[in-house]
């Protein structure tokens, strides 16, 4: 370590009057601490989602629908109207909400277990139905909440508690690129895949979330942002190794970027 450098005090804001605060600890929509593991990527995704609601000025005109996974506990710290729904069912619940509240921005927050295992049908049907809602997928390739078992997005070779020798395609099948499936459907306004492994990917992912909500506000149909998130606990790696593992395993199988761009302004509309 660079122990030779001087340690700067960081227990309070700088006294220097010229200091300008450029970033709060957290957005004001985040009400308190979460209980997730060290190095978990999900709280980062939550933060950029909530910041986006603030940036777009839709804070008090949004309803979230949150599934079951470690992120499920976020309903306690999101200062947004929220329905905590059944495992896998967020897109259907969001449908019911949006149809009754068409002027409100409606989004889901689901994990890979929630969306790609239990609720694969729900997200695909909702997308094809062109439901004008935004889905946020936190994909860490495992059921984090139940202790790290294989999901439908676990990459080949990955060890999980139910693929203890590594995911073997002959026994356990292949991962499903849900965002690509969604992107291929009519009824869809915007689909992208981001990650929260590095500051750069976080910034890019935040723009994707913004584009998804803008797509919804423009009535373009279903939008989805898949976010690859670290789960050091479920991956059996140290927290500091999370981002590298993410880049080397998941990003190889699930490349980042826009999978379905928003329609050109001229062609926009429901």
């Amino acid at each position, binding site marked *: *370590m*660079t*122990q030779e*450098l*001087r*340690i*700067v005090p*960081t*227990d*309070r*804001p*700088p006294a*220097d009057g*010229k*200091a*300008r*605060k*450029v*970033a*709060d*600890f*957290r957005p004001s929509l*985040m009400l308190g*601490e*979460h209980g*997730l*593991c*060290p*190095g*978990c*990527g*999900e*709280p*980062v995704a939550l*933060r950029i989602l909530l910041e986006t609601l603030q940036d777009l000025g839709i804070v008090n005109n949004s309803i979230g629908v949150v599934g079951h996974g470690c992120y499920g506990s976020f309903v306690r710290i999101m200062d947004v109207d929220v329905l905590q729904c059944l495992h896998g069912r967020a897109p259907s619940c969001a449908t019911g909400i949006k149809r009754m509240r068409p002027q409100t921005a409606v989004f889901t927050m689901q994990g890979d277990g929630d969306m790609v295992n239990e609720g694969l049908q729900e997200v695909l049907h909702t997308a094809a139905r062109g439901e004008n809602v935004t889905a946020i997928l936190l994909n860490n390739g495992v059921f984090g909440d139940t202790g790290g078992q294989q999901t439908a997005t676990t990459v080949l070779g990955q060890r999980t508690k139910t693929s203890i020798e590594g995911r073997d395609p002959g026994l356990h099948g292949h991962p499903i690129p849900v965002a690509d499936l969604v992107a291929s459907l009519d009824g869809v306004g915007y689909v992208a895949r981001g990650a*929260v492994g*590095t*500051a750069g990917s*976080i*910034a890019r992912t935040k723009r994707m979330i913004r584009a998804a909500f803008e797509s919804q506000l423009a009535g373009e149909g279903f939008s989805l942002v898949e976010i690859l998130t670290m789960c*050091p606990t479920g991956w059996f790696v140290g*927290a*500091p190794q*999370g*981002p590298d593992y993410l880049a080397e395993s998941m990003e190889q199988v699930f490349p980042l970027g826009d999978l379905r761009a928003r329609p050109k302004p001229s062609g926009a509309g429901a």
Partner: protein
Amino acid sequence: MNQPRGTVVIDTERCKGCELCIEACPPDVLVMSTEVNETGYRYPLLQSGCTGCTACRMVCPDQVFEVYRFDARGA
């Protein structure tokens, strides 16, 4: 770079020691403490040279950082 361009406030009690900020800091000015906080985790310490880039705050899962910039100076 003798005058800092930025600085951070570190809420060490919230830190869970994941070290993501260490890797993320572009000028590499964060180091982990040897001490642990109340919950038993080591936490980052800032060395001089912060640019106020907010990268640490961006990657930290536990909302440990508040970031300041000294506007009058530098770049």
